[in-house]
């Protein structure tokens, strides 16, 4: 059973058009939720860690939020360089660093 579900699978935005990506999770006793960015042919790049409902983190045009059931990655006034696949992940129960990734949302921002 998938622990992390992301939507939409793909999103096309015009430059400057703000939107949100969703990550819902089914694990109980969440020990963190993580957002990564992945460019084509590259490894994931860490963006944010969220630990508790109500927590928010920001980086440039990105803001991640967390509720008890889901997380959102809000993209404000995106630019073409924000085009990438955005992945969310939750940790396993046992080992530090074992992450369960979602399938990601492929974001395309066109000028």
């Amino acid at each position: 059973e998938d622990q992390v579900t992301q939507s939409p699978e793909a999103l096309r935005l015009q430059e400057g058009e703000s939107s949100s990506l969703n990550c819902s999770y089914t694990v109980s006793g969440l020990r963190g939720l993580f957002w990564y960015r992945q460019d084509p042919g590259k490894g994931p790049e860490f963006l944010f860690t969220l630990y508790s409902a109500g927590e928010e983190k920001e980086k440039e045009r990105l803001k991640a939020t967390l509720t008890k059931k889901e997380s959102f990655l809000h993209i404000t006034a995106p630019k073409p360089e924000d085009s990438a696949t955005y992945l969310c992940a939750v940790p396993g129960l046992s080992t530090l660093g074992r992450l369960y990734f979602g399938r990601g949302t492929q974001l395309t921002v066109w000028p």
Partner: protein
Amino acid sequence: EPEVTQTPSHQVTQMGQEVILRCVPISNHLYFYWYRQILGQKVEFLVSFYNNEISEKSEIFDDQFSVERPDGSNFTLKIRSTKLEDSAMYFCASSSGTNTGELFFGEGSRLTVL
């Protein structure tokens, strides 16, 4: 900025052959990982390594796979007898351990099994 480096970037091999994928993690990191991503699929955990031993392995990491840290800098993944379904991008990652989910990934090694 420190980074995880992986070699080769792309390897093509025949089914049944052995392959070794190499990684140089960030120098002061203590935890090392291999993940893989089949084209169009999720990034999947293979194995974690700490203090010179495997901490955890997934169901994917069967007897055909092994990992080794032969010296103070390299971390390798060996696949003894490759299968067609081993074709994927293999990512090495490392972490300091202070943030559970902050892993630093390399750019990956693309393995193509013919």
